[in-house]
C-alpha cells in the first residue's frame, strides 16, 4: 500500500477567546496553541496501522507554515516515511477547493493506493477537502470513515452516518478516504522517536516547485470571496434559568426540545 496522508495544522480555540483582526478576514492567533487537526491525527494513525499490516509506505502532505513542521515530525516519528510541506501565501486557503487543488498537485503523477485525510478540520469545519480531492484525482472516495478494511485491490469502508448507523461501501483502489475520529487510538510520538525522525525527508515546496500556476489556486481562481469574519452576538454566555424548581425544570425542558438539542 502506498498511502498519502493530508494533514492540517490548526489552532485550538476551544477555550480561547477569538478576536478578528482589523483586516476583517483573519483572526488573531497569537494566544492559541496549534496542533495537528484532530481527525487528521487519526488518519495518520490509520495509515501507519495499514503500513504495519500490509507493508508499503506513507507520505505526509501538508500546507502550512514552518512551525507546523513539529506536527509533521511527529507523524514521521509515528511511522510515516517522508513528507512534503507546501508553503505559499498565494493559495486561497479559505476555499477548500483551492486547497484540494494544491494537494492534488502534490499527489498527481505519483503512484498511490490510498489518500487519507481527516473528515473535518476543527478550525473551518468544511468537510470538503478530501471529497473534492478525490474528484480532482479521478478516484473513488468515501467520507467519514470509522472502520477501514483492506481487501485485494479494494477496501471496505464503514461510513459513520447520523445516530451511529454505519453505511458499508466497497471501493476500488486507488481511493480517497476521509477519516472520522475514533477509528483507532492515535499513538504517542516519543521524543526519541521524533529526534530519530529528523533523518527522514521533509521536502518544502511552493506552487512554482509543484508546477501549479498560482492563478489556478489563488483568490482569482476561487469562485467564492471571503468578505468578512465577525464574532456572532451571544446573549451572555450562560443563560441562567430562574424560578421555582418545577418552573426551572419545565423551562429547561422546552429549551432543549425547541432548540433541537434532544
Amino acid at each position, binding site marked *: 500500500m502506498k498511502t498519502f496522508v493530508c494533514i492540517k495544522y490548526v489552532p485550538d480555540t476551544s477555550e480561547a477567546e477569538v478576536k478578528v483582526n482589523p483586516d476583517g478576514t483573519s483572526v488573531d492567533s*497569537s494566544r492559541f496553541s496549534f*496542533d495537528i487537526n484532530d481527525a487528521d491525527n487519526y488518519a495518520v494513525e490509520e495509515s501507519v496501522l495499514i503500513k504495519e499490516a500490509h507493508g508499503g509506505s506513507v507520505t505526509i502532505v501538508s500546507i502550512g507554515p514552518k512551525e507546523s513542521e513539529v506536527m509533521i515530525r511527529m507523524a514521521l516519528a509515528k511511522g510515516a516515511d517522508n513528507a512534503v510541506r507546501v508553503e505559499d501565501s498565494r493559495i486561497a486557503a479559505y476555499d477548500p477547493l483551492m486547497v484540494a487543488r494544491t494537494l492534488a498537485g502534490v499527489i498527481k503523477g505519483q503512484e498511490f493506493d490510498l489518500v487519507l485525510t481527516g473528515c473535518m478540520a476543527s478550525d473551518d469545519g468544511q468537510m470538503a477537502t478530501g471529497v473534492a480531492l478525490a474528484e480532482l484525482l479521478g478516484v473513488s472516495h468515501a467520507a467519514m470513515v470509522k472502520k477501514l478494511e483492506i481487501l485485494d485491490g479494494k477496501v471496505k469502508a464503514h461510513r459513520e452516518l447520523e445516530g451511529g448507523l454505519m453505511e458499508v461501501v466497497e471501493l476500488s483502489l486507488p481511493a480517497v478516504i476521509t477519516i472520522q475520529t475514533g477509528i483507532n*487510538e*492515535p*499513538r504517542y*510520538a516519543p*521524543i526519541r522517536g521524533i529526534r530519530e525522525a529528523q533523518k527522514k525527508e521533509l521536502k518544502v515546496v511552493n506552487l512554482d516547485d509543484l508546477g501549479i500556476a498560482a492563478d489556478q489556486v489563488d483568490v482569482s481562481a476561487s469562485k467564492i470571496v471571503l468578505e468578512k469574519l465577525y464574532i456572532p452576538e451571544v446573549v451572555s454566555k450562560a443563560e441562567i434559568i430562574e424560578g421555582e424548581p418545577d418552573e426551572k425544570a419545565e423551562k429547561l425542558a422546552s429549551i432543549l426540545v425547541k432548540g433541537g438539542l434532544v
Partner: protein
Amino acid sequence: MWGMMMSTENQTFAEKLDLFGCIQCGRCTGGCPVTVRTNLNVRRFVYDAKNEEMLEELSKLAEIWDCTACHTCAVRCPKGLKPLEVLFGLRTLVVESGKTQPTVRDALESVFREGNPWEKPRATRYDWMEGLEVKIADPEQPVENLFFVCCTIAYDPRVQIVAKNLVKILNQAGVDYGFIGENESCCGSEVFALGEEGLFEMTVEDNTEFLNEFQARQLVTLSPHCFTTFRTRYPDLNKPVLHYTQLLDQLLQEGKISWNQDLPKKIVFHDPCYLGKQSLVFDEPRRLLKSIQGVELLEFDRSRERSLCCEGGGGKMWVESESKAQRLAETRIKDAKEMGAEIVAVACPFCVLTLEDAMKALGYEEEMRVAEITELLGELLA
C-alpha cells in the same frame, strides 16, 4: 523502531538502576502506601526486572501505573536504592512504544508543544497575573529571587491563588524578586514519573540553559514537585533552589513579614511527599503556621518522613487506578477530622486538589477546609 530501548549505552536495565544491590528485604513494599489500594508489589518488580527478558511482560502490568512517586520505598531502602524507578523504567518501555494511555499521551504532547501538561496554550501561562503588580525578571538584570511558577498553579484556577498571594506577600515585604514570564516551561517532574525519558532529558537541557541565563542568586519554586526535580535532577543548574516556604520562613526570621490578623483555628499540616520525604523540608512550613496568632498546630500520627501520600504525584493526575478501595487522601482527611482539625494545611498544588476532593467526597465541606499555606497567609495580610 525506536521502541525497545532496554538499556542505555552498555548498561542493562538492571545495572542502570543498580537492581543487583537489592537484598529483597521487603522494606520497600512494606512501606508502600498504595498497597492498601492496588496490587502493586514494588519488591517483586525489583526482583523480576533483573531478568532482561521479562521486562516487556512486566511493562504490560497495569500496576506499574499505580506508583505515586512518593519515594517512601526509596527512603526505607537500607541499600539506598530507588525501587520506584524500576516502575518508571517500565513505563518508559510503554511510552517509547507509543502505546500509552490517551490521557498520558495528551499530557506529554502538551508538555512537548506548549510547555505544560494541561493542554493549555503557552501564551496564556501568565494570565493569572492580570490585575496584579508582578515584577518580571529580566535576564540581563541581577535579581535576588527568581520565581518559578508550576504549570498547575499557573493554569488551574483553584490553585492560582498560591502565586497571587505570594506576589502580594513579596510586594509587601519589599523582596527583590522576579517571575520568569511566559517562556517558563514545565520542570518535567511528572514527565519523568510517566517514563518519557527523552522528553525529560530535553526538558532538563532546555530549562537548564534557559534558567542559567538569569542573573539570580536563587531559584524559588512554588510547587514541591518543581523544587525536588530542579534540586535532584538538574545537575547543571547554576543556582541554588528553594521552596517558597523556605524563603518565607527566612523573611519571617528576619522580621520582614508579619500577619495583621489572628487565626484561632486548629490546623494540621500535611507534609507533601516532594517537600518532606524527598527534600527534607519539614520545619519551615510548620514555623510559618505557628507564626500566626491563635493557630493551634496539630500533628498527624503519620507525619514528616512518614507522611501518608495524597496520590497526586507520579503522573497520577493523568492515570486513574481501577481500585475501588478508599483513596489515601480520604484516609488522610478522616484522620484530620478525627483529631479535630479545622484546617488541613498543605504546601503543594497537587495535595490541595486531591485532599480537597477527598474532603468533598466525604461531605466534610461544612466543618473543615483544605488550604495551601499561602491561601491562609494571604487572608491574614489584609
